[in-house]
């Protein structure tokens, strides 16, 4: 099964908030064009972990990283690594939909204009293409100039996905993307993730085990800042190697 190469290799990763250690010695590979789910009880460090993969935790005061995160072999925390470049290659969709208070089309063109793309037809093409990929085009094509804040929660989240796709990332991080959505919107996002994995390497943090089982190829179970178990989703869910994983999956804690 592991025919795809690893896009991201995490080696001996530790992370501290001030004196508190939030992640303990994590080792993990993320495989190309697969969905990797990260599960675990709240506070286990799964969000902290995923935010390290595109250096969003740079914004946390007092945060400190040890170990390495290799994206295609080069360490993203190396001094010569360009954080802007990394974030463009590793996109992110957040827990709560966070569209800008701009129009739908401006939300998508935002990332394109950052690098100086001003060609109108190029941008228009990208808007349509990204919205289509995010399965939102049909719902919004007639009101691209309306405020993105007028969309429903589920639509907003798909807009955020489209916004992310427009800058053509290679890896997409989903940080509990359905946490604030209703079941129907959740289903749409899950279908979208399965569709997107044809082209993208995907990592999804979720507290919903069924969701992990439905969408992912690999599952990592984290507990108290440690990576307890990592493997094919089927195996982790049916024959877990670790006792803690089994207990969590059977609802004994969490």
């Amino acid at each position: 099964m592991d025919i795809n190469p690893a896009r991201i290799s995490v080696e001996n990763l530790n992370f501290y908030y001030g004196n508190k250690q939030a992640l303990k010695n994590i080792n993990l590979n993320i495989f190309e064009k697969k969905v990797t789910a990260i599960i675990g009880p709240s506070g286990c460090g799964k969000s902290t972990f995923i935010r390290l993969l595109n250096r969003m935790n740079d914004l946390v005061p007092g945060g400190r990283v040890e170990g390495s995160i290799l994206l295609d072999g080069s360490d993203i925390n190396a001094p010569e690594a360009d954080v802007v470049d990394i974030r463009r290659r590793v996109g992110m969709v957040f827990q709560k939909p966070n569209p800008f208070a701009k129009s739908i089309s401006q939300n998508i063109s935002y990332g394109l204009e950052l690098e100086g793309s001003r060609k109108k037809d190029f941008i228009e093409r990208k808007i349509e293409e990204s919205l289509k990929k995010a399965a939102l085009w049909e719902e919004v094509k007639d009101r691209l100039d309306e405020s993105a804040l007028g969309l429903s929660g589920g639509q907003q989240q798909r807009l955020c996905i489209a916004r992310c796709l427009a800058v053509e990332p290679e890896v997409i991080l989903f940080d509990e993307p359905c946490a604030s959505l209703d079941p129907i919107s959740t289903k749409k996002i899950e279908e979208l993730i399965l569709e997107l994995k044809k082209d993208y390497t995907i990592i999804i943090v979720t507290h919903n085990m069924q969701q992990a089982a439905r969408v992912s190829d690999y599952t990592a179970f984290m507990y108290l800042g440690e990576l307890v178990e990592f493997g094919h989703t089927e195996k982790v869910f049916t024959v877990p190697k670790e006792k803690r994983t089994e207990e969590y999956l059977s609802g004994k804690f969490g």
Partner: protein
Amino acid sequence: MSRLKEKIYRWLFTALAFSSLLFLVGIMAVLFKEGLPVFKEVSPANFIFGKSWYPTYSVPEFGILPLILASLWVTAGAVAVSVPLGIGSALYIHELAGKKQKAVLKPLIEMLAAIPSIVFGFFGMVVVAPFLQKVFAIPTGLCGLTASVVLGIMAIPTVSSLADDALGFVPRSFKEASYALGANRWQTLYKVVIPAAGSGISTAIILGMSRIVGETMTVLMVSGGAAVMPSSFLQPMRPLTSTIAAEMGEAAMGGTHYHALFAIGLVLFLITLVFNVAAEVISRRYRIKLGLNR
């Protein structure tokens, strides 16, 4: 017994809560009552658009256009000073300064706000005016430019602290989304944070302007006091506020001049009222837009 007491307290607080309304209405009533009689002598059009203000001549003239224009010139000049500096400071403090810097810079800005206007006026007279007089080689340093500069400095804290509040309302998620798309800090600031705080920042500018238009002692001391139609920043001017302050002492109570000064007060009141209402409307809309009210 205790229920009666409860009722009495409730009524007491309710009644006293109306004091602000009472004073506001009282101020308006006074301005109308004491100001309107001037229109028995001068038509409203001649009062507002008349180009000569000679209240103490044997044949007095009561045209306040030069005073209105002086207020506008000085305000425009002061805005040019206070808006870039005030908003720049707010952005620096809110977005770039670290925790320690913030802890020092915020109180310093508040200190600037606490300095009384009379001290600004005094500083303008003894430091800024002589300096500008030398730089521009003008006969007197007490002129529109000096007033603009000093008023501009005074308004920096107003603009800056209100803009700081507005920046505080911008949801963190906006910034995160922008960073995650590969924007750098400046792009995030310029394209996401400032537009999102836009209406709040315009409120800050408007309230800053309102403060400048209404400022009295500073302009009284540094603007030079010549009631002529302004044509250059380097010329002495006499804005609305300083006219009232300078002339009320010499105006005979109940005379036309006295009423004219109240009418100027009315004009001033209406100008600042428009600013304040505009600011309130904008900030209300803004809060709704960001989903903060409700």
